[in-house]
């Protein structure tokens, strides 16, 4: 008779199999599985992917060239050949909507990435040092947030085009300005997450080990506040599309004859009683992309908050 084998427990050694249920890898895999299974996420992802594909392959997908004016009359109503109709100068709106995805998707992800990166760093600084650093930056953030980010964008983009003729807005300038406009709100979110972490034992332990503040902030605290940062990044991406489209509508973006969605609406809105199709299709394109990204953001937020 052999006695049943008992696991040998060694003080301080890692536990033998079976592995505990909540290793970080497992939690991460489970989170990802929950996100990928959600129907709202799937719908959002499909629509977003569609527009991303249009942004990259627009010229290949579109049946006509977006600035080809050779189809005859202006404002021809939707037909078999031109499902979205023709615009004021007789360009195919279907093709223009498809190619028009590019100018938004070129700017929005980069802008939100910049905003989230800068905002996270600032939030880490504010939360970790608190005291007067937090107080001063906090007041500045309050001040910036008093101005809606579209107004902030208009002011900064106008100021930066300085003495040049008209308003010149490159994609790079848009990325920087929208990124800066998003920085304060991201910083505020990250700061409150850091405030919860900074008094926990692992931070105290790192301090006692004599680690330097940058190490503690980036290596110890940052991984533990990634949840709110990821949520913020997806939410900001939605707002970045919002901002790019609105600024383009207001004239701060691609210039004619670009097929940009916001620009198409701005150019042809006054003729809406003649040709609703010239307005409504670019409008639906913007709406679908923004809502799709926010469906993704909403799922990510719900799963990570659980």
């Amino acid at each position, binding site marked *: 008779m052999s006695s049943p084998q008992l696991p040998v427990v060694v003080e301080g050694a890692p536990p033998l199999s079976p592995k505990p249920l909540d290793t970080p890898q497992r939690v991460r895999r489970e989170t990802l599985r929950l996100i990928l299974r959600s129907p*709202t996420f799937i719908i959002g992802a499909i629509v977003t992917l569609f527009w991303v594909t249009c942004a990259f392959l627009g010229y290949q997908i579109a049946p006509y060239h977006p600035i080809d004016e050779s189809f005859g009359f202006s404002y021809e109503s939707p037909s078999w050949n031109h499902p979205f109709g023709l615009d004021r100068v007789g360009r195919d709106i279907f093709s223009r909507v498809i190619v028009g995805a590019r100018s938004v998707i070129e700017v929005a992800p980069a802008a939100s990435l910049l905003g989230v990166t800068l905002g996270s760093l600032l939030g880490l600084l504010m939360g970790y040092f608190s005291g007067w650093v937090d107080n001063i930056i906090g*007041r*500045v953030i*309050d*001040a*910036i*947030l*008093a*101005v*809606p*980010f*579209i*107004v902030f964008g*208009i*002011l*900064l983009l*106008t*100021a*930066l*085009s*300085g*003495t040049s*003729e008209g*308003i010149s807005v490159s994609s790079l300038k848009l990325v920087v300005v929208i990124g800066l406009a998003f920085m304060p709100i991201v910083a505020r979110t990250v700061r409150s997450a850091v405030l919860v972490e900074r008094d926990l034992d692992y931070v105290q332990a790192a301090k006692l080990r004599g680690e330097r503040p940058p190490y503690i902030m980036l290596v110890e605290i940052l991984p533990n506040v990634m949840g709110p940062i990821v949520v913020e990044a997806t939410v900001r991406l*939605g*707002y970045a599309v*919002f901002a790019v*489209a*609105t600024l383009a*509508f*207001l*004239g701060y973006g691609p210039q004619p004859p670009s097929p940009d969605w*916001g620009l198409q*609406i701005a150019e042809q*809105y*006054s003729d*809406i*009683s003649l040709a*609703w199709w010239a*307005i*409504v299709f670019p*409008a*639906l394109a*913007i*709406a679908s992309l*923004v*809502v799709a990204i*926010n469906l993704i953001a*909403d799922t990510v937020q719900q799963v990570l908050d659980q």
Partner: protein
Amino acid sequence: MLRYVLNRVALGLVSLLLLSMMIFVAAQVLPGNPGRIVLGREATPNAVEQFNHALGVDRPLPVRYADWLSDAVRGDFGANYTDGRAVTDDLVPALQRSLFLAVYAFILCIPISILAGVIAALRRGRPTDRAITVTGLSLAVIPEFVLGAILVTLLGPAFLNWFPGIAGALIDASFVTKVDSLFMPALALALVLFGYIARMARAGTMEALDADFTRTATLKGLKQRQVMVRHVLRNGLLPTIAVISTQVGYLFGGIVAIEKLFGYPGIGFLTVTSAQIKNFPMLLACVLVIGVIYFVATLAGDLLTAALNPRVRLARQS
């Protein structure tokens, strides 16, 4: 309470001062030489210098800022670069127009969104709740001008022709004409706010529904109607009302694109046009006024929240 109020006002003033410094630098320093902006590239350096001297922008920056601020506090925002008229000549009527539109949007928005929020809370987790929440979330993130354009397509001259697609300045227009012409811009703004206010109303109602006092009221045999009106709604919605005022700032972001779309010359429209022609004194004034409106609204909201919360209201000064 007094201490809280004073503290809150002081913090607001500090932020407002910081804001004024930042936008002054953005509008007066970043663009470079105003003489060059106004007179163009061909102007002689001499003419540019003379222009700048007349404007006083050749003085040191702190002096200029102090000068501008002391005027601005008294309601004088200087003169346009373009035609030399006082900035306030156009700013004041524009502000009145925007406030009319903003109030209109809130009147359209508040009853519907509170009702939707309460219904969602009562149907928690069911399809009705999910539908209201997802609709609200989606409407809140679609740019205002896109919602406006879609609304005009449906209700405007293209199909139903119920409301005009362009508002215009509406000078000397009767109240009825104003309400009619501004219905669609106000509705577009209201739809954007809908999601947020409905969510607050839903959360407040749910909290009140789960509270002990609601259970007590039900168990002591009050009619369901009485429980809802006197216990749930009263406690659930008061905080929502206070929170609404913080949405004023958000509304003024949306007003920019909406006024541009509908050609309604309010403060948002003025912001865009003065930026396009680089009339920096006007742009500066518009941004500052929008900031002040935000501060006043947020302050009002915070004070109202505090006044409704006995723990803050009754706190003794120690």
